[in-house]
């Protein structure tokens, strides 16, 4: 018998201690009492006025007990279900799901090699690729549909392109409250009604405040609609350290937590218990190039710390990884994407988005999505940790094979090598074999696989009747806005 044993079932990673988390939490509470936030939405201001919050014009300051009360009401688990019922996600502490980001205005054109506006067809193709690749658990549109009949209804068209080509759960953006309502109606049709959608939502609504501490009308409109209908939503601060948040990671975390907590109170006042998700794209402003960085190591560090905080608060976390500032899919892109994939995964964030982003979140690349499939596989393997039971310690085997023996033909190897990560596009062949097979780079192989998926992968179709019902919502929106 052994005592005092602790076995790590997986790799362990944490940035903040509990005391540090408390420091940040108390500081965020102080920000809400002292500085508060600005809100540009009448109903929200009314909700705050009718509460114990202190409202002056657009400024809202919130006493701590309101935050503490609100935090008690948020679910610790949210189940999402894709159009194909097999694609379920159970968002709960330390379960990780990877997915794309959304709304990139430009697309890397695979034929011309140029950067151009993103079109409906690009979102369709991204949806197909995400549906086909196993390490993607959820889908955001990757690109933003730039050729919709009216920019005011792009979100319905975009959602249609996503739905038709991807059967996984989604995170969606919308123009405004009305847009979100249409998407929710469409989602409910797919799930078999509003009640079914409530139990197994098809998507999470992506909403963001404006750092520092500002909340615009459309963001609040969407947030309140989500609260009313109990649609899962994330309110995701996107502060850039040094510009829209303090230049210190701790200061940025305090401010972004205050932004999140304000939303928890508001949603609680509107409708207690809505599935609100904590979020954050916490990074910095590059001081040489004045860009919002997606490849900075500080993004990984602050995001992982933010996830530590989310777990302590019992909130589901929407984090960031697999993204880069590099203009094309090159060595820089791979290095940056791998770094932030790694730490976001190890942190245990529940939904990790922006996988595949290049050009600091402006350019969509299908090939980048394919490259990240491989990298996510490697990262997940690392997270598995080391099994140290008797079979895995293999004492008997080491004795049996002895010095100078071999393991490759043993039953033990036959059984256990399958626990390893099996590379797909990575090349581990010897030099001569590589030469003989055309001296292909990873970039070459990624290009070939991307083309192969586009040519040959067929996502499960939506049945005609449902498709017509969905299209009616899209058409009606177009008519209203024509």
């Amino acid at each position, binding site marked *: 018998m052994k005592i005092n044993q602790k076995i790590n079932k997986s790799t362990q990673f944490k940035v903040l201690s509990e005391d540090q988390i408390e420091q940040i939490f108390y500081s965020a509470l102080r920000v809400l009492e002292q500085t508060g936030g600005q809100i540009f939405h009448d109903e929200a201001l009314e909700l705050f006025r009718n509460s114990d919050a202190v409202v002056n014009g657009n400024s809202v300051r919130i006493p701590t007990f309101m935050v503490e009360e609100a935090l008690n009401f948020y679910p610790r688990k949210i189940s999402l279900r894709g159009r194909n019922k097999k694609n379920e996600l159970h968002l709960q502490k330390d379960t990780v799901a990877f997915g794309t980001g959304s709304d990139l205005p430009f697309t890397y054109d695979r034929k011309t090699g140029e950067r151009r506006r993103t079109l409906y067809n690009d979102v369709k193709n991204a949806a197909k690729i995400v549906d086909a690749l196993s390490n993607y658990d959820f889908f955001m549109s990757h690109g933003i549909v730039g050729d919709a009949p009216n920019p005011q209804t792009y979100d319905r068209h975009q959602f249609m392109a996503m739905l038709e080509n991807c059967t996984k759960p989604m995170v969606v953006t919308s123009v405004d409250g009305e847009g979100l309502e249409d998407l929710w109606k469409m989602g409910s049709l797919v799930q078999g009604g509003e009640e079914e959608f409530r139990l197994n939502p098809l998507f999470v609504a992506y909403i963001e405040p404006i750092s520092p501490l500002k909340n615009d009308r459309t963001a609040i409109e969407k947030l309140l609609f989500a609260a009313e209908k109990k649609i899962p939503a994330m309110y995701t601060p996107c502060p850039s350290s040094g510009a829209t948040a303090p230049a210190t990671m701790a200061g940025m975390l305090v401010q972004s937590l205050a932004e999140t907590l304000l939303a928890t109170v508001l949603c609680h006042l509107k409708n207690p218990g809505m599935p609100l998700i904590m979020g954050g794209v916490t990074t910095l402003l590059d001081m040489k190039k004045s860009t919002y960085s997606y490849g900075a190591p500080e993004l990984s560090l602050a995001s992982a710390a933010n996830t530590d905080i989310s777990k302590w608060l019992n909130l589901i976390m929407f984090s960031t990884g697999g993204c880069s500032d590099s203009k094309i899919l090159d060595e820089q892109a791979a290095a940056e994407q791998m770094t932030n994939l790694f730490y976001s995964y190890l942190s245990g964030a529940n939904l990790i988005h922006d996988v595949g982003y290049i050009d600091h979140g402006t350019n969509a690349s299908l090939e980048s999505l394919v490259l990240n499939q491989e990298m996510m596989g490697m990262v997940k393997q690392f997270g598995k940790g080391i099994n140290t039971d008797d079979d895995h310690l293999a004492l008997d085997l080491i004795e049996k094979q002895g010095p*100078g023996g071999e393991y490759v033909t043993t039953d033990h190897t*036959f059984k256990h090598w399958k626990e390893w990560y099996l590379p797909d596009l990575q090349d581990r062949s010897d030099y001569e074999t590589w030469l003989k097979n055309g001296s292909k780079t990873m970039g070459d192989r990624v290009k070939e696989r991307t083309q192969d998926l586009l040519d040959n992968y067929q996502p499960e179709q939506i049945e005609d009747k449902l498709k017509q019902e969905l299209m009616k919502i899209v058409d009606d929106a177009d008519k209203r806005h024509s």
Partner: protein
Amino acid sequence: MSIDLEKISEAITKGQIEQLQEMTTQALDTDTDPGVILNKGLLPGMDKVGQLWREGEMFMPEVLRSAKAMSKAMEILRPRLSEGDLGSAGKMVIGTVAGDLHDIGKDLAGMMFEGAGYEVINIGIDQPNEAFVEAAMKHKPDVLGMSALLTTTMPRMGEVINSLKESGVRDQMAVIIGGAPVTQEFADEIGADLYAPNAGSAVDLTKKYFAQQ
């Protein structure tokens, strides 16, 4: 009762060592021609393994399990086979040259040859040049395999080839070399017939070489 040769092939690809031994014995007991068992049952099974391996559908531990099944079946079959039955499946002497204690690559290659029906005489690691020549003269192999993992021991392979020439047996066998620092260029330089960049490709290269002779 007749034996289904396709089942024998299948047992090979599935790496079912014991079942294959039973089936081979049973086939011999029912007077199936040993040459037919080899050429219509075992070898097509290993060809399939080779094909799946090249396509990336089978992996090293699986291939070696099939190879082991093959070599166990060959132990039963070999005494009953006539010279003509053996066809391409010949004899091999393999070893690691003097000063080099590395053996996994050489052993893997040997196992792959056994899987192809070869009788493999593995003379081991750290073998002086004379040991290769002696083994070559004694066993009269179709293939002599040498490996070196160190740049310092690589030159021994050229020396062995020279000794084979001096003994007048060089032309009676194909010499195949391998090991991490070895290249095609080096193989050409020292006058080896074949260079295998990895253990998995050695058998295929050898088969092709003999087909062209």
